[in-house]
C-alpha cells in the first residue's frame, strides 16, 4: 500500500515547458456554433446528417451545450421549470475534451490508446485503439465520440480533407486534440512558443473572441492572465479531474 493516492488537485505532473490550456469566457459566448464547424473542417470529423442525431451517434469534438440560468428574484418560483424570462435565461457552454490532468478516461484503456503527454495534453492514438469504449463511459464530460460506421465524405468534399490530420477508421474512439497538428507545427523548432503564435481552429474562428488558447506555464500568456480572473471555474471540479479548460462566468446573485 506504499503508493499514496495523490490529492487530485496537483496540476502538472511530468510537464516540461509547455502546458497547453484554454480559457472560454461564457459571458462572451453567443452559441453561434462557428467553433463546431471550424473544428469539423479542420480535424476531418465526419459529417452529421440528421439521422446521426436521431441515432445519437453524432461525431463532434466540440459541441455547444445550452442550459437555463435561473436569476433569483424577489418572488419565489415554486418549480424552476415554471420560471420565465427575465428570471430564466438561455446560456451556452462549449464542451470539448477538457484535457484533464487526472483524466478518468486514460487509466481504463487497456492498450495505452489514450494517455497524458508531457505537454499536458490528453492524446488519443487511433491505431492503438481496439474500441473497448471504456474511455467513453468514464468521461464525465461526454467529450468522446465513437466511429460506429466507416466515416465517408461526399465525392465533392474529398479534397476538403485536411492532410495534416488522419482520417479515422471504423471502430475507434476520437476526441478533441487541441488541434495537435498545429501545436506540432508551432513547436517543431523546439524552444518556447511565444504567446498567440497559433490557435486551434475553434479559437481562431470564434467571432466574439470568447476562447483563448496558450501555454499556462508561461505566466505572461493571456491564458494564464485570464485564468487568474475571479470569474473562473472548471466543469465538475468536485470529481478532482482538474481539467485544462477553464471557463469564465460572471456569477450574478447567489446562484453559481
Amino acid at each position, binding site marked *: 500500500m506504499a503508493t499514496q493516492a495523490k490529492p487530485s488537485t496537483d496540476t502538472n505532473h511530468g510537464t516540461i515547458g509547455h502546458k497547453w490550456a484554454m480559457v472560454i469566457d461564457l459571458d462572451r459566448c453567443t452559441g453561434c456554433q462557428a467553433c463546431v464547424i471550424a473544428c469539423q473542417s479542420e480535424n476531418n470529423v465526419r459529417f452529421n446528417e440528421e439521422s446521426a442525431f436521431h*441515432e*445519437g*451517434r*453524432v461525431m463532434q469534438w466540440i*459541441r455547444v*451545450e*445550452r*442550459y437555463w440560468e435561473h436569476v433569483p428574484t424577489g418572488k419565489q418560483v415554486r418549480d424552476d421549470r415554471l420560471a420565465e424570462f427575465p428570471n430564466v435565461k438561455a446560456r451556452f457552454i462549449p*464542451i470539448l475534451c477538457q484535457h484533464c490532468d487526472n483524466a*478518468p478516461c486514460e*487509466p*481504463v*484503456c*487497456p*492498450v*495505452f490508446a489514450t*494517455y497524458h503527454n508531457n505537454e499536458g495534453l490528453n492524446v488519443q492514438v487511433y491505431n*492503438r*485503439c*481496439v*474500441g*473497448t*469504449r*471504456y474511455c*467513453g*463511459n*468514464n468521461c*464525465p*464530460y*461526454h467529450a468522446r*465520440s*465513437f*466511429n*460506429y*460506421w*466507416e466515416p465517408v465524405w461526399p465525392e465533392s468534399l474529398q479534397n476538403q480533407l485536411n492532410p495534416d490530420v488522419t482520417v479515422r*477508421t*471504423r*471502430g*475507434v*474512439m476520437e476526441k478533441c486534440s487541441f488541434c495537435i497538428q498545429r501545436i506540432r507545427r508551432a513547436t517543431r523548432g523546439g524552444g518556447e512558443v511565444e504567446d498567440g503564435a497559433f490557435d486551434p481552429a475553434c479559437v481562431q474562428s470564434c467571432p466574439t473572441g470568447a476562447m483563448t488558447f496558450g501555454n499556462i506555464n508561461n505566466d505572461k500568456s493571456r491564458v494564464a492572465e485570464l485564468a487568474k480572473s475571479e470569474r473562473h471555474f472548471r466543469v*465538475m471540479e468536485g*470529481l478532482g479531474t482538474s481539467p485544462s479548460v477553464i471557463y469564465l462566468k460572471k456569477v450574478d446573485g447567489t446562484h453559481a
Partner: protein
Amino acid sequence: MYYRRTLTDAQINDELLGTVMTTPLRWVVIASFLAVILMGTFSAVGFMINQGLGVTGLRQPVFWGFFITNFVFWVGISHAGVMISAILRLSQAEWRRPMVRAAETMTVFSLMCSLSMPLIHAGRPWRIFYWVFPYDWARGIWPDVRSPLIWDPTAIITYLLSSSLFVYTALIPDLAIIRDRSTGWRRPVYGALALGWHGNPRQWKLQGLAGILLSALILPVFVSVHSIVSWDFGVSLVPSWHVTVFAPYFVIGAVHSGVCAVVTLMIVMRKLYKLENFIWEEHIDALARLLIVVATGWMFFFWLDLIYALWLREEQELTVWMLRMFEPPWSWMFLVFFMCSYVIPVPLWMFRRVRRSFTMMLWTSLLVNVGMFLERFIIIVPALMRKGPMTFDYATYRFSPIEFTVLGGSIALVAFLLLMFSKFFPLIPLWEEKEGQVLADSVRVGKLDVPGIVKEH
C-alpha cells in the same frame, strides 16, 4: 442426509456411461437444433463485424449494452460450478457427488461463452489479441496493467485454465473406466487420456488430495474473478457504478444465479439421460436450502447498495436510481427482476414440497436467472444513460435484433458444448458415486436407522 439406493459398481457404470457408449435419437435431435441456432448466431456476428457496430443499438453515451450485460451474466453463471464443488468438497458434504462435475463443466463452458462477449463487442475485433496479450513484438508497446480491462482477461484466463484442469484431474479415473469398457477407436483415445490409471491406493490418495487442494486454491480465484469484473464498473467515475460494495454484491449475485443454473442443469440432465437413480429430491432440496441462504445474503448487499446510493444525496446518483426504479421501461424491468430473483422464489423455497418437486424447482431456477439477467442490464444501461448534467446526449438504449440473437446464441452455445461434453464424458463422476456407496452406513437409534457416513478423521 438421505437413504441412498445401493448399486453395484457394474450397475453404476452401465447407467452412467449409457450416453457415452450409445447415441440416443433425442440427443441427435437436440444437438442439431442447437447447431442451427448457432449457425444463425455466427452469421449475425459475422454481419456485425463486417458492417460495424452501427448495427447494434449502442449510442452516446451508452457505450456498453447488451454484450457487456451478457458477459457479466455468463461470468456469473460460471461461478456456481466451483462454488458448489469446491465448497461441498471442503465441507465433505455427501450430497455433492452427483453434481460436482456437471457444475464444473458448466463453469468451463459458460466462461468460454462469456470470454467471447467482450471480444465481439470491441470496435475492432480483428485487433483483439493486441488487447488481451502482451504484444511488444506487435507494435512496440505493452498493455497498461493499470486498466481494469487488463485485470479482466488475466483473471478470466486464470479461472478458465484452473477449472479446466480441475475437471480433467477428477475425470482421469472415469476415463480409465471408459478405456476398460470401450473397444475400437475409443480404446486408444481414452487410454491416452486416462494416462495409464491403475487405481492403486497411492493414486486414489492423491486423487482425494487433489480434490481438496484444488478446491482450496480455486475458491479464492473464483471470488477474485467476479470481483474484478465488478471493478470494471466500480473503479469508474460513473454515478451509481462507483460503489465499494460492488465486488461482494456481484460475487454473491453470481453465486445466486449460478446455483440456480446448476439446479436447472441437474433437472434437465435427469430427464434427458434418465438419471433418476443418481439425482433425487434430496439433492435439489439441499441446493434449494443453500439458495435460500445465498439469496438472502445477496439481498443484504443489494440493500446496502441502495441505501448508500441515497447516502450522499448526490443528484446524479439519485437520478440514475429514479430512472431505474420509477421510469418505464426500466421500472417494469426492475419490478420483474426483483420479483423473479427474490420475492417469488425464496418464499416458495421455504416449503419442503416445493423444494422437492422437480418441476417447481426447474421453473423457479429459470425465473431467478431471468431476473438476474435483468439485474445486470439495469445496473449497466441506465447508469450510462443519465451520466452527467450534460443535456445534449441523453439516450434511451434499445438493443437491436443482432444483439438479441447473440443472447439467444450464447445460451445455445453453452447448451451445445455441454451436450457435446456429455456425449464423450460422463456428466456424473462414477468413482465418486462408487465411493459414496462404499462409505454409506447407518446408525441404529431405537427403532430408527439414521443414515450415516464413514468418516476418516
